[in-house]
C-alpha cells in the first residue's frame, strides 16, 4: 500500500504548520481597509458631478444661440425616461422581453411606441437580441475553429490568412453585400455581429489553447492520455482566461456591430441604429441623447455580464494581476 498508517502521522505534518498561514491568505488586497472602499466610489462620483456640471454649462460656453443642440440633462431624463411612462407600459416592456425569451410563447405586449422610453427600450432590446445571438454564434463557430486549429499546425496555417483578411475588411464594406444577399432582416444584422466578433474570439481562444506549457502536455502524455482528453482536461481549461479576454472584446464589438449594421440596413424592425438615425433626422435632441444613453447602457450591461461570468467561472483560480 501507499502509506503505512502507523508511519503516516509523524515528521511530515509538522513543517506545514509554519508554511501554512502565510499561504492561506493570498489576497490581502481584497480585505482592504474601509478608506479604500470610500475612495472607490468617491472618485467616480466626483467625476460624475463635474461631468453633469459641464453638461449644463457647455451649451452656453460653446453653442450660444444654438443651445438646443445640447439639451440639459434633466430634459433628457424627462423626455427619454419619464414622459408618458406608466406602470402599464413598464409591464408591457417586461412582457415583450419574456415573450421573446420563453420559447413558443408569443403575445402582443401592447407597447405604446409613441412614448419615447418605450420606443427606445424596444429598439435597445432588438439590438441586444441581434448582438447576443451574433455573439453566441461567433462563440460557437469561433471556438470550434480555434479548437480545430489547435490540433494541427497545418490547419492553423491554412486558416490564419483568411482570418486576418476577415479582420482587415471594414465591416461597413460588407454591409451592402450582406443586405443584397440575405435581405434586411434579423439574420443579416446578426451576421454583421458574427463577422465583427469572430476574430477576437478565434485569436484569443487559439492563443489560450496553445498556452498550456510543454511540461503540462508531457504530464498527460506520460499517462497515456488521448488527444481528446488532453483537449478537454488541459487545453480548454488553460484557454479560459484568454477566452474571456476575447469574449469581452467580442461582446463590445457585437453591440457596435448591431447598432452600426442597423444604421445601414435601415429597413426592417428599428433597432437602436435606425432610431438614432431617425432622431438625428428630426433634430430630436432629447430623444437622441436618451437613445445614446440606452445604447451605452446596453454596451455596459453586456460588458458587465461577461465580467461577472468570468469571475464566476475562473475567478477562483485565476486573478488578472497574475500572482501565479
Amino acid at each position: 500500500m501507499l502509506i503505512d498508517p502507523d508511519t503516516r502521522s509523524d515528521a511530515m505534518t509538522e513543517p506545514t504548520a509554519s508554511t501554512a498561514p502565510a499561504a492561506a491568505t493570498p489576497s490581502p488586497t481584497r480585505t482592504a481597509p474601509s478608506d479604500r472602499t470610500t475612495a472607490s466610489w468617491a472618485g467616480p462620483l466626483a467625476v460624475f458631478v463635474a461631468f453633469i456640471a459641464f453638461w449644463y454649462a457647455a451649451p452656453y460656453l460653446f453653442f450660444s444661440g444654438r443651445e438646443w443642440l445640447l439639451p440639459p440633462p434633466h430634459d433628457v431624463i424627462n423626455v427619454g425616461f419619464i414622459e408618458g411612462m406608466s406602470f402599464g407600459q413598464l409591464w408591457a416592456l417586461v412582457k415583450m422581453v419574456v415573450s421573446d425569451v420563453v420559447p413558443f410563447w408569443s403575445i402582443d405586449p401592447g407597447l405604446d411606441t409613441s412614448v419615447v422610453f418605450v420606443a427606445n427600450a424596444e429598439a435597445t432590446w432588438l439590438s441586444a437580441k441581434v448582438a447576443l445571438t451574433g455573439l453566441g454564434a461567433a462563440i460557437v463557430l469561433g471556438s470550434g475553429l480555434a479548437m480545430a486549429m489547435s490540433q494541427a499546425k497545418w490547419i492553423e496555417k491554412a486558416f490564419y490568412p483568411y482570418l486576418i483578411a476577415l479582420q482587415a475588411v471594414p465591416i461597413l464594406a460588407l454591409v451592402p453585400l450582406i443586405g443584397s444577399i440575405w435581405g434586411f432582416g434579423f439574420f443579416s444584422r446578426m451576421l454583421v455581429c458574427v463577422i465583427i466578433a469572430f476574430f477576437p474570439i478565434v485569436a484569443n481562444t487559439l492563443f489560450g489553447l496553445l498556452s498550456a506549457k510543454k511540461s503540462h502536455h508531457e504530464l498527460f502524455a506520460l499517462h497515456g492520455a488521448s488527444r481528446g482528453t488532453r483537449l478537454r482536461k488541459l487545453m480548454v481549461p488553460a484557454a479560459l482566461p484568454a477566452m474571456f479576454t476575447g469574449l469581452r472584446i467580442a461582446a463590445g464589438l457585437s453591440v457596435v456591430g448591431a447598432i452600426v449594421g442597423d444604421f445601414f440596413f435601415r429597413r426592417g424592425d428599428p433597432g437602436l441604429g435606425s432610431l438614432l438615425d431617425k432622431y438625428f433626422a428630426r433634430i430630436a435632441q432629447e430623444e437622441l441623447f436618451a437613445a445614446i444613453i440606452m445604447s451605452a447602457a446596453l454596451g455596459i450591461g453586456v460588458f458587465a455580464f461577461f465580467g461577472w461570468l468570468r469571475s464566476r467561472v475562473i475567478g477562483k483560480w485565476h486573478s488578472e494581476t497574475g500572482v501565479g
Partner: protein
Amino acid sequence: MADSSQGRIDLTDKPALTFDGVDMVFPDGTHALAEVSFDIRPGEFVTVVGPSGCGKSTLLRIASGLETESGGAVQVDRSNIGFVFQDATLLDWRTVQDNVELFAELHDVPKDERADRALRAIETVGLAGFEGHYPQALSGGMRMRASIARSLMMEPPVFLFDEPFGALDEITREKLQTELIRLFMDNGFAGLFITHSITEAVYLSTRVLVMSSRPGRITADIEVPFDYPRSPELRFDPAFAELSGRVSRELRDAH
C-alpha cells in the same frame, strides 16, 4: 510495495530500471548521451549529478519514455512511472485535491477510490487542510509537495525526479529532502533523482552517479553508505563532507 519492515534494499531483486549502453543523438546533431549504462533496483535511490547541459534531464526523459533513445536499450515498466518535473506543473484550475487525483483520473480509477488515495497522499506530503486550495494560493514548496503527492498516489515502483527542488529556497529544500527520504523509506520505490547539488545528491541517495559534460557519460558510481533515516545533521558530518569532496573531485575530473 515494500515497506521498511520488509527490508528496503534487497539486491537480489530484479532491477526496476536498466540503461544498457544508451546513446542519444538529437536530430539537430546534439550528442547528449554516450554509452550510458546503469541499473536501479527496488529500494535504491540513485542521484545523477553533472554540470548543466550534460544530458541529465535527457536521461530522465528517456527513462520515462518522453524521448526515445537512439542507441542501446532501456528496460523499465512504463505502465506506472512517477515523474516529478522541475516545476510543480500543477493545473491552475484544479484544487490541490483535484490536481493530486489527475493521474488516477487519466487511468480511470473509480472516483471514490481516487479521492481516498489522494487524501492519503496529501496527508503524507503534509498538505492536509489544503485540499481545497488552488495552486495560486500555495507557496513554491507547497506546490512541489502537491506535485509529489500527485505521483505518489499512483504508488509507482519507479520514481523519477528532474531537479524538483532546484527552484526552492534553501530552508524549504532541506525540509523537502528530509521528507523525501521518509517517503522513500515508507514506499520503497526505485528512485532516480537528477540534481546539480552535490550535497543534495549525497544526502538523499544510496548511490551517486557522476556525469561528464556533453556527451554525457557516467564517469563514477559512488556508494553512499549512510543509514536511513538520515538526520539533517548528517550534512555536517566529516564522513559526509569527505564523500561530498569525492563527488566534487569526480565532477571536476569528468568536466
